[in-house]
């Protein structure tokens, strides 16, 4: 079978490629690496750490809420906890974890040797890590953000919330937004220019569709919240009147700007994860995804419509009826492309031959949770119904079903699925099943009753509730479920750590999957592919079995490109090779730039303008060094192996 050939490059040649691409050893290499695989794993590890921190915040809140009138937390402490929980999960876990998957997998899936901008990749990670620390800098001072993750004015204006907490929030989100923007640009350009020859856009994995859609959307949505945060910081620091009623400012302007970002953002949090399922589930159904084109188009359509529904977070604000009606209708219609994806997965499972391994359990569980979250979603999309449901625990139930159901469950399933590729070992299957069932049952015990207490009228964002409303029993059940769910996460983590040293060895393709990342070793060499593949179909490794195309993908002959760090650049639509791309190697510039930006934001936070100025000057200096042009290289004839 020609397509599953091992790359039969001579060992000496392979060693030359490895030496060219390997990160330098030691501390220098650790700080200077631009290897997308290392950066991807850092994103994954860091986001899981934030997941655990956010989870602990949630568990403490659930103890406080387990019974009415509990005095574990003072109201101010509770308010900081729920604000931090939201910020941590939505900003510091949910998108970065998907960036981690995409960073690690994209070049492997696309048949390339690196992302389009390797140093920008490193930069986006350092900015993420440093901005995450920045957002937490208030915690030891008892000044964590306390306005909720949505931070409505006027409560978060200086008059009502004078501490440094909201300044940390506002500046921290602008800081994090830089990481998101540069990372998104990297994904977009990587997609357009560095796919393997022959990988036309209708042959890309759905994860790639999902991430590029989310990245393009982020480029257009993040500036909205960055602007809102800047305006808020200007109101608080310099007495501006963007939102201050006394100076003819408008509190609702904050909500428009925030949700114009916030709604596209939540689709950015789930579309790549849906892509994970669309790529990995079919492997466990032993058949290609049903309706690839429909699912790819549904991904883009969902995101586009997602820019036109933001007012559904504002149904109760007293906006004109015409606006409310339009946005309600749009919010209901957006469920249609999601339905395309759901029925595609159901059809794939039903018409396939399911293999009930741990990843499959997570993906099947995800479909169930998606449907429940989707139903509660289109219920709240109806403005008339939303006037009862909004700001109650019903919405808390909805958002957790969609965020954990559509982000966390695919992420954990995805880790079980790609762990062998990343480490060369399988995760434990038995512990995997235990972790799935504990998580799934615990999740539903914790979050399903929230629909009920929401319908009973329990408000969100409250540190306690009266004893005479009959909510105590449900809340106790919810808290128990939360701890059970946490135990499931713990089992998953134990499995992860144990498998690192004791997992069964995995070959290049333990799941017998079709996409390119499984054509190279586990873990991949630093240069990903000895020979850059030439792609002829959506499922390069299943071509003989599927016979969907006449040609065969070539994995053992093609571009070698071993003069320094090189990969092939291709045309955007059809992926025809048209340029050799020389990639930068290890560099401390990304870390340097990130540290200068950190200095800038710390200066702004403290109103220490000289320090901020130094940070800005340093950043400009690093940028000049970064962008300084190298001597041009003449056109060349590429080295190939054929």
């Amino acid at each position, binding site marked *: 079978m020609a397509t599953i050939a091992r790359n039969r490059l001579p060992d000496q040649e392979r060693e030359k490629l490895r030496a060219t691409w390997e990160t330098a050893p030691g501390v220098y290499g650790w700080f200077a690496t631009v290897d997308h695989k290392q950066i991807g794993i850092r994103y994954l590890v860091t986001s899981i750490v934030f997941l655990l921190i956010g989870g602990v915040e949630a568990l403490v809140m659930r103890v406080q809420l387990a019974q009415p009138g509990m005095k574990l937390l003072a109201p101010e402490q509770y308010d900081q906890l729920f604000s931090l929980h939201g910020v941590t999960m939505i900003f510091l876990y949910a998108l970065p974890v998907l960036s981690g998957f995409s960073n690690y997998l994209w070049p492997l899936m696309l048949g390339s040797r690196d992302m389009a901008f390797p140093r920008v990749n490193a930069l986006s990670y350092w900015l993420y890590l440093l901005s995450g620390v920045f957002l937490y800098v208030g915690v030891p001072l008892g000044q964590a953000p306390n306005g909720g993750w949505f931070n*409505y004015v006027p*409560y978060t204006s200086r008059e*009502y919330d004078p501490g440094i907490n909201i300044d940390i929030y506002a500046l921290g989100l602008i800081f994090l937004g830089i990481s998101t923007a540069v990372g998104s640009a990297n994904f977009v350009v990587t997609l357009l220019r560095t796919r393997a020859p022959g990988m036309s856009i209708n042959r890309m994995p759905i994860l790639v569709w999902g991430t590029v859609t989310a990245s393009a959307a982020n480029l257009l949505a993040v500036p909205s919240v960055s602007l809102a945060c800047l305006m808020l910081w200007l109101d608080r620091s310099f007495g501006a009147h963007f939102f201050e009623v006394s100076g003819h400012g408008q509190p609702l302007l904050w909500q428009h700007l925030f949700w114009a970002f916030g709604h596209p953002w939540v689709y950015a949090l789930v579309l790549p994860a849906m892509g994970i399922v669309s790529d990995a589930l079919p492997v466990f159904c032993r058949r290609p995804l*049903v309706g690839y084109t429909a699912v790819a188009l549904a991904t883009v359509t969902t995101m586009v419509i997602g820019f036109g529904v933001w007012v559904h977070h504002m149904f*109760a604000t007293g906006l004109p009826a015409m606006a409310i009606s339009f946005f309600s*209708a749009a919010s209901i*219609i957006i469920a249609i492309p999601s339905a395309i994806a759901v029925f595609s997965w159901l059809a794939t499972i039903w018409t396939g031959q399911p293999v009930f391994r741990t990843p499959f359990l997570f993906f099947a569980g995800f479909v169930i949770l998606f449907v429940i979250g989707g139903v509660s979603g289109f219920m709240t999309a109806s403005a008339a119904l939303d006037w009862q449901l909004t700001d*109650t625990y019903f919405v808390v139930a909805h958002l957790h079903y969609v965020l954990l159901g559509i982000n966390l469950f695919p992420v954990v399933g995805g880790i079980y699925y790609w762990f062998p590729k990343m480490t060369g070992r399988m995760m434990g299957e038995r512990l995997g099943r235990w972790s799935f069932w504990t998580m799934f049952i615990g999740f539903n015990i914790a979050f399903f009753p929230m629909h009920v207490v929401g319908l009973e009228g329990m408000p*969100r964002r409250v540190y306690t509730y009266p004893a005479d409303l009959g909510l105590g029993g449900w809340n106790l059940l919810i808290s128990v479920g939360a701890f059970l769910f946490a135990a499931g996460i713990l089992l998953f983590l134990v499995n992860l750590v144990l498998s690192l040293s004791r997992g069964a060895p995995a070959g290049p393709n333990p799941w017998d999957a079709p996409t390119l990342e499984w054509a190279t070793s586990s873990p991949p060499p630093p240069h990903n592919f000895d020979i850059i593949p030439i792609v002829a179909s959506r499922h390069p490794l299943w071509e003989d079995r599927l016979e969907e195309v006449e040609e065969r993908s070539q994995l053992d002959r093609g571009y070698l490109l071993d003069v320094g760090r090189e990969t092939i650049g291709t045309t955007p639509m059809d992926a025809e090779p048209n340029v050799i791309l020389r990639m930068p190697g290890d560099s401390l510039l990304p870390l340097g730039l990130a540290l200068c930006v950190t200095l800038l934001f710390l200066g702004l936070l403290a109103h220490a303008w000289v320090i901020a100025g130094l940070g800005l000057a340093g950043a400009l200096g690093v940028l000049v060094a970064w962008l300084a042009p190298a001597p041009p290289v003449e056109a060349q004839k590429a080295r190939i192996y054929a």
Partner: protein
Amino acid sequence: MRRDAGGMRWIYIGVSVSTVALIASAIWTLLTLRAVAQPGGGVTPLAISVTGHQWWWEATYPGAEPDGTFRTASEIHIPTNVPVRLELRADDVIHSFWVPKLAGKTDVIPGRVNSMWIEARTPGVYRGQCMEYCGVEHALMAFRVVAEPPAQFAAWRRRQLAGASTGASIAPGYRVFARRCSACHAIRGTESGGIYGPDLTNLSGRATLASGTLPNTPANLARWIAHPQAVKPGARMPDIDLPPGEMQPLVAYLETR
């Protein structure tokens, strides 16, 4: 391995059925929005102005007669079978007004007047709560809508307008009030006209204290006056330290207003 493109039928049928359900839901939504936009005709609506504060609710009843406008707090009385138009304002930050059994919620936003209407068919007490995070005591910002037959509502309204009656036996309590409370609180019919805190006219007629936080009993009232920060940490009312010789008359006075 399954090779064919079968399974597309799932998508066609599934999406078609979903689309029909979604469109039906959209139509229902638009029809319902139109139906609840205005009260049924026939009866002259009553207008009440509601203002949200950190962390209590104020209601102002406009009156046609001279000096016919009065304020109250935490309990909003309405007549049954009369549509009530609420004008919603916020004094400080965004809150949200919700009486689940009577209507959907509407935010109160500083710098803006929102309006909604409610109508109670059956007499009774309807619980409401602030539904938009507004600070530390957002959790303890409830209120009650008391719907009563028009005759009883009219009687309540007259009592509110009449305000306090001074009787000699309870004057000592009033003196404490005037000295320690009137900077922030008002009682109609006396010289106390403080506007920062809730209007306490006929406090004895209310079932709860501190915006639905405590049942209205003399013991709770004393506790609230002495240590509001222990009951509702962060509330705008400071602890008022009164010796028993002053607290008891004050509580007695307030509980008979």
